[in-house]
């Protein structure tokens, strides 16, 4: 968004007084902005609007070839959704994933960033690359590999446990352990991104602040508590919001690893939406799920901004 918008603004700023053909400058601006505006319109604005309209219809299989014929059902999809026990299960699972997963990701990301910033200087690049690699690796590939790792009979984790004399559980097939297993994988995968962002944040903190704190008698922990954390507050806010929004859209991990099972214990909201929309072809109903998820994401992001900014 920034580049064309900026170009447009610059063009506008550079424009001479109105008498000298402003339409031409406008045209230049719009030409620069056009690729974005057109793509945004076709690929984002239109579908977003269309799915909003859809959420008030019973659009499904029979309307595929003739969408204009679908029936308007008002708020029925939303009423059905809130009385659907599977929806509440999926909502619970998603929040379980977010509430446990987001703090773990941020804490581990911050710990590793701090360690890399201060302690380990020799192989910093190696570690940075190592932690970041999972972020850029295809999530499906990762999920498949983790499925092997977590295999109850031939998986590396249970073989290691077996070597210690522990009979490892069926991680992904156990209703209690399935979600924690997925959280562990997601945290491992995403802490690299948190680390990179925190590292950038840490390096932006002037060294003199620590020196001043040290002169005042602050130890390492106090330096962290009273210098690092307050200085990182904007970074933490950013990471919390970004990670929460990402985690609320949990999909690939359970889709590849568990298919939502066992007993729907890893069925996320997005998976439920996918199932309704593209397996059962209740696309009107699925659109209503999308909008409920949208409202939830917006509300959570709003809360986080409010809460984390309150001290400023």
């Amino acid at each position, binding site marked *: 968004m920034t580049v064309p918008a900026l170009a447009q603004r610059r063009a506008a700023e550079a424009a001479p007084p109105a008498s000298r053909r402003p339409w031409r400058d406008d045209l230049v601006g719009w030409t620069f902005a056009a690729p974005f505006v057109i793509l945004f319109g076709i690929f984002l604005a239109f579908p977003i609007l269309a799915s909003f309209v859809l959420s008030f*219809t019973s659009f499904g299989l*029979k309307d595929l070839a003739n969408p204009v014929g679908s029936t308007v059902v008002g708020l029925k999809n939303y009423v059905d959704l809130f009385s659907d026990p599977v929806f509440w299960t999926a909502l619970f699972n998603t929040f379980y994933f977010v509430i446990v997963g987001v703090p773990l990701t941020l804490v581990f990301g911050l710990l590793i960033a701090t360690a890399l910033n201060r302690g380990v200087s020799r192989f910093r690049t190696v570690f940075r690359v190592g932690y970041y690699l999972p972020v850029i690796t295809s999530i499906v590939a990762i999920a498949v590999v983790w499925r092997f790792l977590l295999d109850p009979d031939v998986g590396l984790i249970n073989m290691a446990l077996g070597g210690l004399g522990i009979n490892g559980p069926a991680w992904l097939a156990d209703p209690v352990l399935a979600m924690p297993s997925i959280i562990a994988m997601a945290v491992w995968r995403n802490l690299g991104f948190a680390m990179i962002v925190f590292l950038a944040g840490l390096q932006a903190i002037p060294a003199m602040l620590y020196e001043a704190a040290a002169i005042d008698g602050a130890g390492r922990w106090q330096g962290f508590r009273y210098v690092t954390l307050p200085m990182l507050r904007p970074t933490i806010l950013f990471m919390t919001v970004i990670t929460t929004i990402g985690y609320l859209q949990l999909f690939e991990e359970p889709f590849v690893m568990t298919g939502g099972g066992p*007993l729907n214990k890893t069925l996320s909201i997005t998976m439920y939406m996918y199932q309704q929309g593209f*397996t059962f072809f209740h696309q009107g109903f699925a659109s209503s799920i999308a909008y409920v998820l949208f409202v939830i994401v917006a509300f959570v992001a709003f809360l986080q901004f409010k809460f984390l900014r309150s001290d400023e």
Partner: protein
Amino acid sequence: MLQPLSTSRRSSRARSRPFRFAAILAGVGLLVAACGTNAGSTAPGGSASQAAGSQAPAVSPAASVGGTLTVWAMGNEGVKLKDLAATFMKDNPGTTVNVTPVDWGQAVAKLTTAIAGHQVPDVSQMGTDMMGQFAATAALETVPATFQASTFFQAAWNTNIVNGTVYGVPWYVETRLLYYRTDIATKAGISTPPATWDDLMTMATAMKSKGGATWGIGLGAKNWQEYLPFLWSNGGDVMDAQGKFQLNSPQAVEALTFYESFFKAGLTPKSVPANFDITPAFVAGTHPMFFSGPWHIGLLKTAGGAGFDAKWALAPMPKKVTATSFIGGGNLVVYKDSKNKDLAWKFVQYLTDPKTQVAWYADVTDLPAVQAAWDDPTLKNDKNVALFGQQLKDTKAQPAISTWSELATALNGTLEKMTSGTLDPKAAADEMQKEAETIGVGK
């Protein structure tokens, strides 16, 4: 209540952040579709009205029809169909058949996208369990009367009938038999395959206690395809003749009780990881019995290596009231938007000719859906394949209703609750019935 809408989205599959991108693709697809097609080419209102609407073209094999066909086929069929298409083109000068292979994982998405965009192939393969859904899109042509139901296995033909109209022709079939380890059975003191339900239970128990296997049998903890044969064999069914669900009939409760007893007795694992592969487990001998289709013959040959062939055998479905197994496979459908329907049906006729069916079996080992093809020695003389042929005479399929994928998911969910011990069989049957009534049969 019938107010028209101007916009809409339809399906498309995208892997990551699926919904948004799918919605986007869909939106564009519709725009294109709206611009590119003549309005009013399809009438809304579902499948009921179209039986009368489309007149069946009279296809006689002798008629020479030229032109171009586009055919979509999935998986291995999509790769190999070119061979048959080449023969067809040779036999029918002036015709061109373009075969497009479609990945099974993308099949539903690709077909629904094509239907929404009015960019359908002339002919496509379709899973027997997809018929209800796709008939509901009103995009399929009615099968002309030149195709005789009696030519095919009855249960295979029936998968094509939705609300009384025939929308497809069976192409190939598969059914499920019992694979069991003969060496472990011998060790357990059993020399004959299980003929009845009681035999099956006795055998599973003995294989675990005396045969040295970890489990007695490997049953699906959440797989309707493995449960339904027990329901059918006990005289029950998903729906009665009037189309009313009867998933909590006494027969169903009894079948569920029997199915559950293997889990309760620890004869089969209660929790099975997603994507669990039974093949290596069967070769290793931890799971000495399982129900599966003909594809496992080849898989076992590869996984078992030399000498393993002597260690296993096939047995028909064990009998209760009947010995009914599940039938699946692929059908062939012709689309209403096809520009060359006569040639399309001619191609379908060619593919379902007994001779072609035998050639097709030789090429890709798909079992013929046409009964006459089974008289050929290549099928008759293979002991294992012949057993599948026998079983095919007593098979049933899921009802061809548009809501089947949803109902199947619900059945799997309830089965999982039962096999994991959360629900007893009676409660599971009641839950299945309730779910089915809520989901309904679609329109």
